[in-house]
């Protein structure tokens, strides 16, 4: 059994339909810790010791955040800058995060179409991938939920069906359950650009 830490960063969570839905769908388990960064550190005064202790007591680190200017919101970046210290997370003798799983769960107001070609999601998330690798973590492909703005506007089509969000929430729940029960093989995941493909394939195979 793995313990999952969801590091959640959203400056205006109160208006985020996608994040509210996804977080509500998190398994209600003692193995899952939801850590709401903007609620804990509205002054950006991050308690580094406390954050490092949290990391150490978990096996899977999930970055849960919206895509802001092709990256994460500012407080999560601040968190990375301060908490992932040299000598602790990376560098000689730094083993605190070694072999822990790292996965991003990204929400976007835009469509899949906004993340094509050079702007594909894996390219954009390279800084996070490099970070995880530098910390000797096991990087897993990101899980993406699109269409926040269209869903709010009620503008659905064949690419964005009305049950899309429900499906995403259930997949996300499944993903976290799988992480808890160690049912995910990082090697096998290397074939996916995003973790969503894993579910698309299972759906197809069913």
């Amino acid at each position, binding site marked *: 059994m793995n313990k999952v830490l969801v590091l959640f960063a959203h*400056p*205006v*969570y*109160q*208006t985020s339909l996608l994040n509210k839905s996804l977080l509500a769908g998190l398994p209600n388990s003692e193995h899952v810790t939801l850590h709401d960064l*903007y*609620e*804990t550190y*509205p*002054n950006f005064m991050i308690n580094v010791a406390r954050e490092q202790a949290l990391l150490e007591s978990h096996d899977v680190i999930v970055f849960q955040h919206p895509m802001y200017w092709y990256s994460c919101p500012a407080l999560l970046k601040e968190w990375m800058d301060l908490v992932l210290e040299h000598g602790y997370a990376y560098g000689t003798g730094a083993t605190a995060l070694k072999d822990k799983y790292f996965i991003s769960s990204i929400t976007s*107001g*835009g469509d899949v*179409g*906004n993340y094509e070609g050079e702007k594909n999601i894996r390219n954009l998330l390279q800084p996070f991938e490099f970070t995880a690798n530098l910390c000797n973590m096991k990087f897993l492909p990101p899980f993406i939920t699109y269409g926040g*703005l*269209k869903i*709010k*506007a009620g*503008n659905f089509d064949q690419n964005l069906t009305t049950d899309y969000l429900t499906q995403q929430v259930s997949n996300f729940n499944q993903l976290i359950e799988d992480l808890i029960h160690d049912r995910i093989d990082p090697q096998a995941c290397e074939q996916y650009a995003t973790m969503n493909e894993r579910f698309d394939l299972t759906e197809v195979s069913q």
Partner: protein
Amino acid sequence: MTAAFVIASLFLGMAVILVPLAHRLNLGSVLGYLIAGAIVGIVLTYVAPMLGMETTHLLEQLNHASEFGVVLMLFVIGLEIRPSHLWRMKSTILSAGGLQVSITALLIMAVSMLVFHLTWQVGLAIGLTLSLSSTAIIMSTLKEKGWQNTVGGKASFAALLFQDIAVIPIIAVIPLLAVSSVASHNEIAHGIDITAYLPTWLKPIVVILAIVLVYILSRYLINPLFDYIARARQKEIFTTAALGLVTTIAAFMSLIGLSPALGVFIAGVILSESEYRHELEADIEPFKGLLLGVFFMTVGAAFNFSLFGEQFMLIGLLTVGLILLKASVLYLVGKVLRLKKIEHALFFLALAQGGEFAFVLFTLAVGQNVIDPSIADTLRIVVALSMAITPLLFLLYEKVLLKKMMTTDSDDRAADDIDEENKIIVAGVGRFGQIVGRLLQYNQFNVTALDNDPNMIDTLRKYGWKVFFGDATRMDLLHAAGIDSATGMVIAMNDPDKVLELTAYLIKHHPNLTLFVRARDRTVAYQLHRMGVKNIYRETFESSATMGEDVLKHLGMRAYQAKRAKLRYQQEDEALVAQLAESFFAEDEKGHLLKVQQQLDNLAKVLSNDQHVKQHSMNKDSGWDESSLIEDLGSKNKY
């Protein structure tokens, strides 16, 4: 009638000239009245015969009238006592005051008996009378120098409080010390005594019943009565009722042969916990002040100046002796209270004089045939002289002892950073400036601090602060503190007037100094703004806004949203201060608006601004407003 007008004008005119002068010289108003009285006394010896009067007779009559002032004073003392408040301070009051009064009284009694061969009764009366110090002089000096909240100031206050209360039993005891009951001038104090014909065993019962009656009257009858009067909204009837209450109780007490002062004191104590306390005090205060003033002037007028000439050496020795004796006793009491040396010095120098009560008690003692009038005459002059010397003692404390103790302290502790000038000077290290200083020290920036609380300075010095004692608005002190090499100055004194004064001075004479200024409220902020100060810190602005932020969170707002709401509100408000500062003074200069009206107007402007802001931004944070995005990206298939 003409004579009365002439005499009244003489007394009042002299008082008007001399009392403010005495006050300016820190001599206290009592001494002013005494000197005014003495001058009137000399003038009267020439004027009174012209008006067809005898000076001594005239003074005696005036004295009787003004004794009502003493009664009123005791009523006001009673009002100020508040038993619940007193109870909390009981140990300090008892140890500071009890020891001081009893030891001083006994020592003076011993001196009277051994050196001057007086009887023990006379010795005790003199001892008790001289053990009291001058509340009026000490309290006003402590207040003026800002020392009333220092440890030494508080100990002095406790001792004075004890003395004020001790006056009551002393008044009760002095008549009992009369050796010859034959010639007691009883008519002065009471006149008619209806208990005179009662059997002796019944008298104590009558007295106890009377006190119980006063208690019941004050406790259960007066509040409803005042409620009734207050509802009529007739200010002068309230005053009349207050005075009437005092006269009624005084009359009642005289009738049964008790001291009227004692009766009104008890009534005052009982009423001190009533909601009418402040109103009563305010109503009685002018009468008390005026009549007491007349009382002290009659004492002054009765000064026997020929005596002063004859007994010059004796009076001088007695005065010095009295001060030395009182100071030594206070020194011992201070040791018992474990006062530190600076506080200790203040305590034993401040209280080392005779007090205004001495004049009251000497008059009583002479009237009751306890003390010979000639002794009382001499001692009155001694007390007056000792009071006149008090400001010199305060000066000795402030300019010599305090300075010496402060420099010897800093020599041991901070010898190394004496030459090193700090970049920041903090003026006023009370509850505000202290935090600024601590934050800087915490980050290894040494500060130079200025303050006028010796106790605070002592504590801060222990922890390595470089602290100068004194008023930060003094130029020489600013130079000693190194203002010429400082780059920034934190102005954080308590008194907004001092803050403005110092700020104005520094802007004019040290224009390159960066100022950080504490503003007590919005109005002060306006003034500072107008002076061109850039860094203004409104006292409660940060903490109250933070409290608001937390209440928003309590109401369910997200922490970060509440934080931004607070910051945005503060930004708006700061901008508003800048904008309103100008119009605030424009109106002020016209002189059309009263201060209070101005404040309300000001609040109205602030509130209307808030409404305006609310209308155009509602609850949104423009940084993450996505309404236009939804319109753009959400509905059309762009990009």
